[in-house]
């Protein structure tokens, strides 16, 4: 019955007998536990980052379980904390208030061991999904670090994508395609758009000056390299549906609405929507970021350039959405602004011949 689990669980209860009984059951299921006697103590434990699952009583002195849920949800922690409330089965009001305050689940008191175990497993599954997302982002960061060691390019890109999609989800022409799952998928997979750069030689990727035509041709291969890799993984793991979107983004985010992009010179709606969305996000970020050969453009200038690219570089509908949302783009740009000392970390090649309309945006 006993197995070793890696999840540490924090039990929050002012009743020492209830807390010890719960900890005993959890230890038999293989979990390591700690006890806090009220919400304030629990906050200190959660701040250590050692506890991803918290099981809390509702009525406690100093800080109760519902306030604890709110506090944890307002904290900046490195990962998600799964919150389970212990409530009397008849206490519907506490359950509703707890869920509204950010609790994920509840267990009726007194707990039944098997139910307890199943509820925790549900929490572990959710945390595992988050771990998957962290792994995706870590891989993307690793690839991005070759030419952008400490910047926040990927953080901004996924935020821009989410902002655009949240707006598109309300538009008649997009609402059948853009739903909550789509938004979550693009948020998770858009950071992989340039993962193919791992296949580009350093002498080209890190070249500070203008690329030759041949070098530029090699540079543009990154879209196909990344897409081929992601397609191979998607084929091996067809149940991982989000990889399909990752593949489409990697392959098509340098295509242009007028068919002059690369690698396949797709035009209009031949380009998957996710690729068109990332194109806007990626170009806005490139324009508003520092390069070794240019200062960063102002937000206003970037807005003007993207506006002028409507129907040529970009899907006109997406440019309309962007223009409605440009203040939100600016807010994200400021929130994830690269520090001055990291701005020179990039050694990016100059633009090649394929997209002359935006000479300062490189592949």
């Amino acid at each position, binding site marked *: *019955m006993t197995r070793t689990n890696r999840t540490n669980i924090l039990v929050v209860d002012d009743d*020492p007998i209830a807390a010890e*009984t719960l900890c005993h*059951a959890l230890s038999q299921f293989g979990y390591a536990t700690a006890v806090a006697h009220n919400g304030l103590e629990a906050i200190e434990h959660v701040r250590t980052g050692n506890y991803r699952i918290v099981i809390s009583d509702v*009525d406690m002195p100093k800080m109760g379980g519902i306030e604890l849920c709110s506090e944890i949800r307002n904290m900046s922690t490195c990962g998600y904390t799964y919150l389970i409330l212990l409530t*009397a089965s008849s206490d519907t009001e506490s359950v509703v208030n707890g869920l509204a305050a950010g609790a994920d689940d509840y267990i009726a008191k*007194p707990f*039944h061991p*098997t139910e307890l*175990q199943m509820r925790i497993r549900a929490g572990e599954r959710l945390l595992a999904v988050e771990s998957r997302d962290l792994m995706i982002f870590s891989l993307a960061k690793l690839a991005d670090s070759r030419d952008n060691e400490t910047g926040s390019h990927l953080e901004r890109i996924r935020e821009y994508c989410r902002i655009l999609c949240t707006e598109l989800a309300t538009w008649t022409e997009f609402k059948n395609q853009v739903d909550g799952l789509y938004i979550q998928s693009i948020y998770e997979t858009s950071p992989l758009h340039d993962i193919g750069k791992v296949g580009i030689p350093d002498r080209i990727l890190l070249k500070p000056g203008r690329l030759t035509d041949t070098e530029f041709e090699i540079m543009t291969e990154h879209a196909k390299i990344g897409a081929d890799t992601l397609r191979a993984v998607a084929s091996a793991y067809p149940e991982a549906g989000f990889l399909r979107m990752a593949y489409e983004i990697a392959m098509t985010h340098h295509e242009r609405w007028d068919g002059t992009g690369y690698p396949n010179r797709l035009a209009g709606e031949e380009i998957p929507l996710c690729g068109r969305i990332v194109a806007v996000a990626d170009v806005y970020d490139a324009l508003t970021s520092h390069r070794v050969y240019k200062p960063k453009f102002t937000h206003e200038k970037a807005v003007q350039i993207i506006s002028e690219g409507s129907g040529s570089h970009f899907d006109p509908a997406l440019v309309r959405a962007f223009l409605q949302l440009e203040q939100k783009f600016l807010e994200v740009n400021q929130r994830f602004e690269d520090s001055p000392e990291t701005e020179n970390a990039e050694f990016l090649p100059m633009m090649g011949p394929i997209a002359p309309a935006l000479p300062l945006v490189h592949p």
Partner: protein
Amino acid sequence: MKPDVETDTPVIIQDELIQRMMGSAQMAQRMLLKFVDASAVDCDELESIVRLGHTAEIASLAHRHKGTAQTMSAPRVVSIASAIEARAASDPTSELLELVSQLRETHREIREFVDSTDLNAHSPEPSFHD
């Protein structure tokens, strides 16, 4: 002035308790002793705040005691503590003190139960998933 509890209700539901203790009769025995020891303090405190008329504190302490009793599968204690919690603001002091007295008596029975019962003889087979 009696809480709603059947006279033949056991003082402790052994199988349920031992199952909650993951099949460990030893753990059940140890936690019951803790429960009885802690209850003496709780009863003294309850009596004190009943006499002082601190209704919110009475309800709060009775609520916590009820929760502990649920964990320990002690239905008669649950019933009395629940009655104290519900009536803290409405009943006269004398009736609340009568309930506290019943609570003490029930805990005395639990102490006798712990002293006289070999829980190992009643251990149910634990049935948990791995």
